[in-house]
């Protein structure tokens, strides 16, 4: 890929992300998914864990933020192509000379950035309403983990969106996919509490490595080896996801041009 292309694509990603944010802030469901629902989960968890210590509170803050990230990825990014379908804008996007996945990358970036707001909201909720003094074990490594988590989530979202379009059967399980990932990725409690046969499933989920890095750098011991390993896994998953998604997008668009499904839902 030429350097000029990368600059152009990145500029497009930022513009798409900015305009997507402006567009979505008028949608009350999106506000619910990224702000209200994680707040409800945080309140429930904080009540349940009251008296168990400051670390648990921070664990819940990070965990509820991750639930917001996953929900936005599943519902907003997963439906992003369908959304363009419904608005009648899909043809105009596909007919643009920029690769379609670059556009969806920008939309996913907007969704993920919005979701980080839910983590901030939960932090403020725990600190101001519940009175916890929330400390982060390794602030710099935590920021690094957040950035890599953003990349891992966006890349994972790029696989989900074309799969939902090509195989409608998968999308029917969209709701059923929300809570199992909360559990299997260890968002709100460690996966060590789960039966051991579920562990391999957790390992193949990029959100698990994001949760592991974020928890380790916020409430964990800040073990550098563990953190670097989780970062490495996120990077590997991101590269693989980006590669696979570019193939999926090509396949999806070719199929849509053959089946004439760009206009109709």
């Amino acid at each position, binding site marked *: 890929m030429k350097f000029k292309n990368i600059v152009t694509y990145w500029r497009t990603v930022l513009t798409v992300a900015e*305009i997507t944010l402006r567009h979505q802030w008028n949608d009350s469901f999106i506000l619910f998914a990224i702000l209200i629902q994680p707040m409800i989960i945080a309140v429930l968890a904080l009540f349940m864990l009251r008296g168990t210590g400051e670390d648990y509170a921070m664990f819940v803050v990070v965990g509820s933020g991750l639930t917001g990230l996953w929900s936005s990825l599943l519902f907003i990014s997963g439906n992003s192509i369908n959304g363009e379908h419904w*608005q*009648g804008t899909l043809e105009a996007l596909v007919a643009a000379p*920029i690769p379609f996945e670059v*556009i969806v990358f920008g939309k996913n970036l907007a969704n993920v950035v919005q979701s980080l707001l839910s983590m901030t909201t939960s932090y403020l909720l725990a600190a101001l309403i519940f009175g916890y003094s929330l400390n982060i074990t390794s602030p710099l490594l935590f920021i690094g983990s957040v950035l890599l988590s953003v990349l891992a989530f966006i890349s994972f979202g790029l696989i989900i969106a074309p799969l939902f379009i090509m195989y409608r059967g998968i999308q029917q399980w969209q709701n059923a996919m929300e809570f199992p990932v909360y559990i299997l990725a260890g968002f709100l409690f460690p996966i060590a509490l789960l039966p051991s046969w579920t562990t391999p499933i957790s390992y193949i989920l990029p959100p698990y490595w994001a949760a592991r890095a974020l928890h380790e750098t916020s409430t964990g011991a800040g073990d550098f080896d563990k953190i670097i390993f989780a970062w490495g896994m996120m990077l590997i998953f991101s590269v693989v996801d980006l590669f696979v998604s570019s193939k999926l997008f090509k396949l999806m668009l070719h199929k849509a*041009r053959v089946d*004439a499904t760009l206009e109709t839902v």
Partner: protein
Amino acid sequence: MNTIEVKNLKRIYRTTTGVIRRKHKDVVAVEDISFDIKEGELFGLLGPNGAGKTTSVKVLATLLIPDAGEVRVKGLDIVKDANEVRKQIGFIFGGERGLYWRLSGIDNLRYFASLYHVDPDLSKKRIPELLELVGLEGRGDERVQGYSRGMKQRLHVARTLLHDPDILFLDEPTIGLDPVGAREFREVIRNLQSEKKTILLTTHYMFEADSLCDRVAVIDKGLIVALDTPSALKKHVRDLSVVEIETFGIAPQKVDEIRALPFVDALSTREQDQRQVLLVQTERGAEAVPDLMSALDGMRVGRVTVREPTLEDAYVRLVGGKV
């Protein structure tokens, strides 16, 4: 030099019904069409609903892959070189959709400019110019959901021109516009024509094709039935006259009976409020009126006029007189 070359284009839609015993059905949208469009030409594609106009435009706009044939835009193959073709073209499909209604007109244009590799500094300069060109100056900051249908359609034009394409595909762009909006829109098309853009226009409105197009292809059931300049197409019907008869509540069987009369060359109907206007093409002109009146005996009949044929009449005759 030909900017667009279409050779033996064929496109089929495959539909599937049933869950367990799935049945496949092929619908031929475009059977076999060939035409060329020269640089700077405004070429019209006319035909009834389902004739294959939109399918042809979508193939040219790289949104559909043809089943057979060869389609080239500026010498580029629309399947193999789709991405290069996309840089050269702009398209508008009729209707209000295709814009982000919760965004302002300017944000819509900024968004699409970024997708077409338009430099941000250039797009800052170009967006106000385009809004002025399409008559939306001063309205760009408003959300699109508050725009009228005509304004949305004009915003589509601005969107299409962001990357300054040489080739434009306009698929029934005036559909659903009120007469004033449609007239203003035709003025926009004329301006584009004067800028030497190569334009492919599909429309239902014959007077639109007559007044705008350099050449017109009449398409019916996926085949081109005539291709010429509007004035040459009108020659197809120069020996005929058109008798227009206002009727009230005429039955379809009666229309078919009149169509079958030996002196009737073609017949079409037009709904106007409570009336159905019969447009009868005949060599006999005014002399056919008494025979037509006797065929309509017992029916309530309003005004009857005899006039010279138009491009619309030529079109009706070319597509078999059943419009």
